């Protein structure tokens, strides 16, 4: 059982981690999707290759968002309860 102020700080940290951690992946994945659309409009016959590459790139860019999620859940359920 932690002090109230420690629990409050852990919960605030969880919100900060997930909130700001979600900015980067969101912007980055959007750029990937935008460029994939441009690519499909130039060469529609390569649409499946472009979509696959886009999804791989987005998955890598997603990883930091998942780190944020893990840290936020850790802070909430280990130190915030």
């Amino acid at each position, binding site marked *: *059982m932690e*002090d*109230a*102020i420690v*629990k*409050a*700080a852990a*919960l*605030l940290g*969880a*919100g*900060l981690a*997930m*909130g*700001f*951690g*979600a*900015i*980067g*992946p*969101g*912007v*980055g*994945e*959007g*750029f*990937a*999707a*935008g*460029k*994939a*659309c*441009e690519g*499909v*409009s*130039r060469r*529609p016959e390569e*649409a499946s290759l*472009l*979509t696959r590459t*886009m*999804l791989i790139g*987005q998955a890598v860019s*997603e990883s930091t*968002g*998942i780190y*944020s*999620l893990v840290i*936020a*859940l850790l802070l*909430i359920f280990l130190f*915030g*309860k």
Partner: protein
Amino acid sequence: MSGDWLSVAAQNIDWAPFMRMTQYLGAGLAMGLGAIGAGVGEGYNAAATVDAISRQPSAAGDLTRVMLVGQAVAETSGIFALVMAFVLIFLTPVPCAEAMGAFLGAGLAMGLGAVGSGVGAGVAGARAAAGIGRNPRTRGHVTIMMLLGQGLASSPAVFALVIAVVLAFAQQFQKYVGNDPVAAVSAMSAGLCIGAGAIGPGFGAGVAAGGACEGTARRPEANNQLMRVMLVGGAVSQSTCIYAFVIAFILIFFI
């Protein structure tokens, strides 16, 4: 609730003036931050439209109409923020420590949450204007693609609005009526989480929609493929916003 000094101190304070303070502060944050995105996005949209008209003056009527439609959609996140600011100003809640956190959280959620969606919808409109300027015959396809993309870009603002409304009206459901300092900070943290978390996905989905609009203008016959790529890519870029939404819900309902 634990019996340490912070929790004990929280019981012995008259929270009424502090609570009014956070209501007005939250309203200011909601409207002040919430106006950034819509303003920048609509200005960017108008700039791209003017640029397109200077290249293709004969399409001026179409371009102006598409600009106004696009700006109206980009405005929605700003209107969400305005509504939230009104709600926070005129609410008459039970004074307590937890309500303070909830109102600050509601203001942060809606204010920050409107930034990305406003800019993103503006980017989509701007790229649509550029595309129509190059190829005015495709305006029907491009407008539909723009509206779909702007809807996708606005969804993070809707998530933020949901959390802000839950936080602002929680007292109607007997939540946030006590003086637990942990619950107060948790409510504020939930608002900050979904607010900041909505910035990136809103902007990213707007960029994806912009690419799809320009692509449709370049090659209207690839319309269906472009729509599929835009929706898949935009949905993946929304995923982090959904994580933030889940964490905000946990912070509100499981603490």
